[in-house]
């Protein structure tokens, strides 16, 4: 990772009208796929350039620019030694500050030309310049972000202090807190310019030329720049709103965004040097924090490891997909049709038993496409093409002979699924794959009635499909390598993250979630109030309260999965009477408005044990630890990293807990319950 060291390359341009201009290019010598980053060596190289420029009295202006498509994406977090001491961490912050402040100290006009992706320390270096030009999106700077809070850090090289001073505390909160907590959302050049963080926005085609011309104009005085008038003081409303927003996203689980908020607020009160010193301290605290380590582990899992497709058969060519079939036209099936249409852009047949079901499914797809058009994310022509030409509804198997794969999303009953696959086998070409979206049925059994069971593979989506990026790929006993490889390719093509899971009851994510639920329900059974349990669990940092999750999934489905697990492991997954009663009463959840539904309370047998929040957390986490340990022992997945990838992508579990296993190690649960940690040494290096 540190192999590609970004160098600051100095060239001089002798402008006829403005004199000698220093053009400083950040470049690691690789193409855009390996972006420029800041490392200690890169900072040294910037210092060397500054030495030269400071000494040359003929230099009339300074321009900092990146390589094509990339400005600088900030500190290379993967290169941070996991055993770094706080003193070393402090030194990292100070070195960045000291280096960048030298740009501020130059007594010539300075311009940062943000030509492409800029993140973290890449954004920060630009803030020390007199002016910023930014390349217009699309194609210029489409990725501008402070991702620090997303990975358990705070901006540590001036971001929290300079953004409020340049563009105001609202802009700082949006960029440094809100966006990273909103799935690490990226900002585009146009928004950066509107926020007042850039002084000029130029088209990408001649961006560097235009930026040089701008600097020439500044030097000669022809260019007049109106700076945004900013009050860096944060008012109480913004502070309270932001705090409430952080609580809604991470509850009290994550530390970094709260720290960032204090630093942004402080920018309105401190001198710059005071603020930068506070940033140093905060960054050092965060770098050595367990949350940051877990976050970096998680980041590496989803950004790098998952993209290498662990578990895909090597050197096996997946099949080409030119037509797709879907059996069922319910909500899940319609969401699939929409996704396949957008990503594959090939004909899709959606079959159900009644025309009205088909019409409802097609109607859903078209409504969703219309919404995309309204949001400006799709042209009307494309929406019409996908909704009316690509996706065809049908009640017969006509046309299925041309499908390259068919995925079923029919009722969760073995007999029905076997029947569907049997009928398909009579119509489809021999190489057509059969995918099943079952969440709980045995796939080997599902395939067993076929002449060729090797064509069946599990392909389990998570609801809502548009939000959760996980696909559990389930290999049945006879699944062929080609089928498996193709399933991986399909997952990548629709931009999902595949995790290979053994064919076993409820597969992985639902089993883990039900184990957690089991711990939760037992606490309630013993006497803990619903609300106390919800609060205790969500405070750990999970994305939602357990009983909110129960409502989202639907009590009936939860019970169904519990029954599946109970059939396999009756001791560990007893049928919960309260849940059963809830389903019988057809309740959507345990709450009615803000309070517990009295009818639910009535039908839920409870003991009278008093719990502290810690006791609840301990019980639930121990239950989780046990189930994860067993899953790994049974080989449901290959490694704890698969567990974490699946829980992050399929259940939205937080980066700062490392999915879950890193957190369970950090808190000692794994050693206590299993006798050893999930990870030995540095989990990143495993």
């Amino acid at each position, binding site marked *: 990772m540190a192999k590609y060291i970004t160098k600051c390359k100095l060239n001089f341009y002798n402008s006829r009208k403005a004199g000698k201009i220093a053009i400083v290019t950040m470049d690691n010598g690789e193409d855009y796929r390996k972006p420029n980053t800041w490392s200690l060596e890169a900072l040294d190289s910037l210092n060397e350039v500054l030495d030269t420029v400071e000494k040359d009295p003929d230099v009339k202006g300074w321009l900092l620019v990146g390589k094509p498509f990339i400005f600088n994406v900030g500190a290379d977090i993967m290169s941070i030694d996991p055993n770094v001491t706080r003193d070393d961490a402090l030194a990292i912050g100070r070195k960045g500050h000291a280096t960048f402040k030298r740009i501020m100290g130059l007594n010539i006009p300075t311009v940062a030309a943000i030509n492409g992706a800029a993140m973290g320390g890449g954004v920060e270096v630009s803030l020390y310049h007199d002016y910023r030009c930014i390349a217009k999106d699309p194609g210029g700077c489409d990725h501008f972000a402070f991702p620090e809070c997303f990975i358990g850090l705070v901006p540590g090289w001036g971001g929290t202090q300079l953004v409020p001073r340049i563009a105001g505390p609202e802009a700082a909160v949006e960029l440094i807190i809100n966006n990273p907590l909103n799935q690490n959302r990226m900002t585009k050049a146009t928004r950066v310019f509107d926020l007042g963080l850039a002084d000029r926005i130029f088209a990408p*085609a001649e961006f*560097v030329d235009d930026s040089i011309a701008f600097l020439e104009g500044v030097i000669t005085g022809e260019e007049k720049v109106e700076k945004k008038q900013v009050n860096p003081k944060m008012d109480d409303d913004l502070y309270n709103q932001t705090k409430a927003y952080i609580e809604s996203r991470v509850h009290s689980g994550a530390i970094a965004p709260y720290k960032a908020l204090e630093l942004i607020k402080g920018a309105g009160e401190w001198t710059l040097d005071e603020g930068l010193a506070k940033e140093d301290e905060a960054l050092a605290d965060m770098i050595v924090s367990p949350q940051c380590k877990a976050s970096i582990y998680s980041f590496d899992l989803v950004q790098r490891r998952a993209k290498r497709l662990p578990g895909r058969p090597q050197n096996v060519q997946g099949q080409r997909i030119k037509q797709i079939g879907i059996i069922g036209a319910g909500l899940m099936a319609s969401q699939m049709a929409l996704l396949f249409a957008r990503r594959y852009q090939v004909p899709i047949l959606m079959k159900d038993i009644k025309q009205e079901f088909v019409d409802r499914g097609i109607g859903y797809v078209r409504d969703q496409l219309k919404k995309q058009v309204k949001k400006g994310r799709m042209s009307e022509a494309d929406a019409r093409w996908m909704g009316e030409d690509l996706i065809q509804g049908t009640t017969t198997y006509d046309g299925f002979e041309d499908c390259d794969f068919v995925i079923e999303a029919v009722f969760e009953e073995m007999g029905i699924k076997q029947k569907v696959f049997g009928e398909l086998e009579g119509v489809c070409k021999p190489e057509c794959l059969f995918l099943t979206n079952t969440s709980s049925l045995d796939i080997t059994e599902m395939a067993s009635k076929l002449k060729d069971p090797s064509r069946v593979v599990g392909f389990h989506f998570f609801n809502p499909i548009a939000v959760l990026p996980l696909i559990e790929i389930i290999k049945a006993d006879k699944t062929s390598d080609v089928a498996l490889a193709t399933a991986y390719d399909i997952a990548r093509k629709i931009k999902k993250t595949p995790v290979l899971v053994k064919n076993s009851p409820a597969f992985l994510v639902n089993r883990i979630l039900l184990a957690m639920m089991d711990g939760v329900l037992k606490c309630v059974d013993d006497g803990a109030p619903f609300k106390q349990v919800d609060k205790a669990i969500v405070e750990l940092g999970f994305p939602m309260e357990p009983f909110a999750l129960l409502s989202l999934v639907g009590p009936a489905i939860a019970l169904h999965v519990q029954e599946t697990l109970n059939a396999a492991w009756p001791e560990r997954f007893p049928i919960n009477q309260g849940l059963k009663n809830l389903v019988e009463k057809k309740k959507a959840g345990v709450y009615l408005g803000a309070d517990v539904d009295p009818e639910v309370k009535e039908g839920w047998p409870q003991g009278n044990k008093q719990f502290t929040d810690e006791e609840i957390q301990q019980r639930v986490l121990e239950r989780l630890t046990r189930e994860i340990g067993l899953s790994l022992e049974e080989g449901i997945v290959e490694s704890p990293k698969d567990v974490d990838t699946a829980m992050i992508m399929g259940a939205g579990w937080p980066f700062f807990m490392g999915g879950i296993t890193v957190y369970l190690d950090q808190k000692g649960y794994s050693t206590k319950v299993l006798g050893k940690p999930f990870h030995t040494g540095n989990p990143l290096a495993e």
Partner: protein
Amino acid sequence: MDLRDAYFIDGLRSWYGRAKPNGFYWTTRADDIVTKIMKELMRRNPEVPWDDVDDNIWGATTQSGDQGTTMGRTTVFTAGLPDRVPGFSVDRMCAGGMTAQSIAGAWIKTNAADIVIAGGVEHMGHHPMGAEADPNPRIVTEKMVEPKYFNMGVTAEKLHDWMVENGYPEVTREESDVYSYHVQKRYAKALAEGYYDDQTVNMAVFTPDGWKVADRDEQARPETTLEGLAKLKSPFKAAGKVTAGNSSGLNDGATVALMMSGEKAKELGLKPKMRLIGYAFEGVDPSIMGWGPIPATDKVLKRYGFKIDDIDFIELNEAFAVQAVAFMKYFGLKYPEDPRLNPYGGTIAIGHPLATSGVRLSVQLAKDFELHPEARYGLCTMCVGLGMGGATLWENMVGKDL
């Protein structure tokens, strides 16, 4: 139908780089250079309704990679012209740009177009000469062209010998060198005096050493001495006469011109710089490719009723000095310097990114006319690989009304 007049409104070029890893444009796409000069042309001529351009024609010898995908069409997008503007690419090797400009003129004359962008581009660093060529083997087996004459340097050596063998005056090595020396000096003087200022545009380029500004012709050697030239050896022949010092180099760059009908120019209130009188292309024995400008010039003069003495300025693309000296001797110009021929320097100093050069000649001729309003007619001429010559004939419009 009566023919209409076609006019040269404006033209400019990128600076020409050396086609080497340390040259300006080594990591810059050919079509990005085209985009840059098209945008500059548009910026410089705000009175022109650019949405109404009738065609965008680009010459390039290699039509693949960053010079492929029908660059005349793709640069419509990259330069920001509207979708309705069509475009295409042409190839006549070195005369690709000259051919594009001739087509533009012909279409305007025949009322098929009013506003046409025509240019030439060549990134010889990305597309070394002949690298992607697959000539028909019959050309060699049936002795249509000897394979050695696919190498342009060898044809230049042959031209020296052929002239003597065929009763033309000899061109000596020394004459070629002296001529080249004068080209370098004339170019250096013109550059310093600002002759090239408004026919070139600077361009920021990303290089392995970081961003730089391509702001000069990289090949020019103002420090050239006669002694230095005399020491150079021919890479093409033992005791040969053609050297790096008396030839053009391998270069990257692009040149563009805006051509327009008289009606349109008048309607827009534009003052054209030149009127295109006509053009001619003519083939010769491929082994004496450099002879091409002579029959092409004879042809264009004859077709349009001119004599060489009617011509006030000749911009000749001297891929090799020998052809310039041969041309001077054939048409009775004054050697080693004739005030009518390449008065402000030439290809040996500027560089020769193949298909660009024909258009560059016209851009310089327009500047010659601007500096000499009394001049009436001018000629651009060049040699072309595999034995061809091309020539365009122009009338000075400076100070004249439409």
